[in-house]
């Protein structure tokens, strides 16, 4: 019998899909958190579904080939077959249960953070990330978007005593200690965002008007890139941040350099209001898709740290002093002078003169000399007491409805 | 023909099963227009209920205070403030109109055209006066400073929900009034003489449904 082209095609597609699955390099990358259970559930689902797919695909190919049209032949007349149908129902149901059960168990873990998890607030806004820690008392001060001002970037409620020792991290980079479960609380200043680190597996949307959460325990010390996984406007794709999983010691040192809300109000401000405004403008114009402010030179653009003053080598080998004129020119006419090692990929931003000045104000403060702040948490350098026990917040009454 | 109601031998399930497995029509003895109206009302129920879900969620999530309905909707009659008076009157009107509508349907099946006409006109008049009272209620609230986006007594959602739901309901009533009048006129003109006057019942279905929602929305 001639083999029908479609039968061959069905066969090739089925087998080809399986081959692709085993040869492709694209699978989950190495896990960086405690969520193996997710990987296991995926694995189980893969096996069950893979088998079903192969069996059904091959049966189709085979039967299409085998039962091709013959003039005068009658197909078998069999409208129903109760035992076959109920058998298949039962098998499918079993398959579903086997996949669902581990999933639900894992979900149960997922929504119940362990008691000893410490809390970290991820604060999202178009199009960057900031972070807040509850400080020595382990309790976040109340914060609400309605209080947000230039000099109150997190919208802290001013008269809330729990807030004073909250630690504010005003950059998109956060460090977290390895092997400690963390309950991430998510807040948004404007629209939906989603804190997403592929290797951690876990994610959740930040919803304005609510506080959402998820938890995980990082197990590998590594610098992870944070993506935003919920469409949040025209620069959604460039809303990146960094989550640096570090040893406890490094974490402690870093934490000591951070400013508290009380300190922030007293003027230990890393940023003046003008500079903060510049930072916001740079953020909304998507500058941080290519530039960093912490000294890392990305492939996409040179860092802005210490951009003010000093010299720079251009791609024609000449050296140029980075004065105000140069920087303005670099922004408004980016293709005129190209920094060595880069290509003219930067677009001319659409900003007003005033906005440009604010950006310059911001760039001026980007120096690598340490900002003098008081230690955020009392205690010895390098050893930090993380708040233990029940993740606490302010005591509240039982929620009632009315 | 036999009575279309449940005969005593059939259980509700066998009767349902029998109807659904019969040929030609599933809803026995139900004219096309009436079947269509029922299905439309089913769909409209989903619209109204979704609005009410919106109301419920707003009410339960806002942290600003929600005004006390009995104070807001009080009318001052002869110097005494009677809570909810306006709403009570409006409900009274709509329920009454439902009564007249039901009678109109009844008269329709007795082919008493003029009785149908006058009852339907009465229904429409009651409906129109309901809309009229809304026209009284809205400015009253607006004068008190309530806006769709703002409410001096607390949560702005109170104003939003109020104007949206009553507006939507008022729209239904207005459409209903027009519908009633058109059908009433066509009835006396003899447009439906060759039928059983189901059209009156179909109009009635719509009207009762609109009425039903005043019951649910003004809570």
């Amino acid at each position, binding site marked *: 019998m001639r083999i029908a082209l479609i039968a061959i095609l069905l066969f090739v597609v089925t087998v080809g899909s399986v081959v692709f699955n085993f040869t492709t390099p694209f699978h989950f990358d190495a896990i960086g958190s405690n969520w193996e259970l997710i990987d296991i559930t995926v694995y189980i689902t893969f096996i069950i579904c893979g088998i079903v797919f192969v069996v059904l695909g091959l049966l189709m190919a085979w039967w299409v080939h085998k039962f091709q049209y013959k003039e005068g032949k009658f197909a078998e007349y069999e409208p129903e077959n109760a035992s076959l149908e109920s058998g298949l129902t039962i098998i499918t149901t079993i398959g579903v249960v086997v996949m669902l059960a581990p999933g639900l168990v894992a979900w149960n873990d997922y929504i119940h953070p362990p008691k000893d998890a410490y809390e970290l607030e991820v604060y999202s806004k178009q199009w960057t990330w900031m972070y807040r820690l509850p400080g020595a008392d382990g309790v976040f001060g109340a*914060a*609400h978007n309605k209080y947000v001002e230039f000099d109150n970037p997190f919208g802290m409620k001013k008269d809330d005593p729990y807030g004073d020792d909250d630690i504010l991290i005003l950059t998109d980079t956060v460090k977290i200690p390895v092997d400690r479960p963390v309950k991430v609380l998510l*807040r948004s200043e404007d629209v939906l965002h989603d804190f997403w680190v592929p290797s951690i597996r876990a994610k959740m949307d930040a919803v304005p008007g609510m*506080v959402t959460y998820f938890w995980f325990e990082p197990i590998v010390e590594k610098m992870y890139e944070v993506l935003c996984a919920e469409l949040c406007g025209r620069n959604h794709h460039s809303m990146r941040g960094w989550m640096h999983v570090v040893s406890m010691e490094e974490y402690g040192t870093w934490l000591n350099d951070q400013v508290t809300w009380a300190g922030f109000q007293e003027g230990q401000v890393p940023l003046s209001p003008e500079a903060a405004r510049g930072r916001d403008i740079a953020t909304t114009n998507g500058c941080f898709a290519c530039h960093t402010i912490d000294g890392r030179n990305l492939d996409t653009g040179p860092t802005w740290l210490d951009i003010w003053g000093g010299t720079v080598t251009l791609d024609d080998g000449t050296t140029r002093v980075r004065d105000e004129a140069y920087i303005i020119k670099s922004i408004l006419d980016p293709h005129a002078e190209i920094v060595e090692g880069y290509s003219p990929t930067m677009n001319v931003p659409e900003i007003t003169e005033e906005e440009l000045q604010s950006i310059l104000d911001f760039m001026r403060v980007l120096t690598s000399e340490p900002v003098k702040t008081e230690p955020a948490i009392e205690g010895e350098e390098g050893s930090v007491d993380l708040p233990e026990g029940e993740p606490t*917040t*302010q005591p*509240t009454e039982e*929620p*009632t409805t*009315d | 023909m036999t*009575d279309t109601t449940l005969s005593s031998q059939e259980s509700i*399930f066998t*009767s*349902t099963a029998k*109807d*659904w497995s019969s040929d030609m*029509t*599933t*809803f026995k003895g*139900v*004219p*096309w227009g009436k*079947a269509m109206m029922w299905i439309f009302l*089913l769909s409209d*129920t989903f619209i109204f*209920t979704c609005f009410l*879900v919106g109301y*419920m969620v707003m*009410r*339960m*999530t806002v*942290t600003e*205070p929600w005004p*006390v309905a*009995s*104070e807001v909707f*009080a009318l001052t009659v002869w110097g005494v*403030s009677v*809570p909810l008076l306006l*709403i*009570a009157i409006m*409900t009274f009107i709509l*329920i009454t109109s439902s*009564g007249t509508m*039901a009678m109109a*349907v*009844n008269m329709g*099946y007795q082919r008493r055209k003029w009785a149908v006409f006058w009852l339907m006109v009465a229904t429409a008049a009651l409906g129109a006066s309901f809309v009229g009272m809304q026209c009284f209620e809205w400015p009253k609230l607006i004068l*008190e*400073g309530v806006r769709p986006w703002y409410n001096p*007594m*607390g949560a702005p959602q109170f104003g939003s929900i109020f104007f949206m739901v009553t507006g939507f309901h008022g729209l239904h009533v207005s459409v209903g009034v027009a519908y009633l009048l058109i059908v009433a006129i066509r009835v006396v003109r003899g447009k439906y003489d060759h039928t*059983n006057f189901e059209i009156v*019942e179909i109009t*009635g279905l719509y009207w*009762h449904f609109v*009425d*039903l929602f005043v*019951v649910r929305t003004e*809570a």
Partner: protein
Amino acid sequence: MATEGQQHPIKIYFLIWLLLFVFSFFSYLVDYLDLQGNLRWFLIVVFMLLKAGFIVAIFMHMKWERFALIFGILLPPLALVVLMFLMAIESNYAWSSRVQYMGEDPAPKPKPPPHMDHGEHGEDKDH
């Protein structure tokens, strides 16, 4: 399509009509007496359903339709019941997150409407 129509004594309409008033009266009482909490919602819902039920059953003649139609119309809204139920649970959740983290007042008092505000509320005007 032959229909023999719906013939019922007018009396029943009047009866239902009266009944509806009685129920409306009760549900206004709930507001009037300013019952609060779960009792309030329970009563309001009960009266609402009673009224709706009577309108649908008698005025809209559903009582006299065949069950094929009755089931066809009354079953689908069950999905709405699920929606309402879940939304109620979730609203509560969202609300408590606002109170817990955002410093919102769990039991705010509404201001009286302007026409009730005869000055005696003056002292708590800006609390």
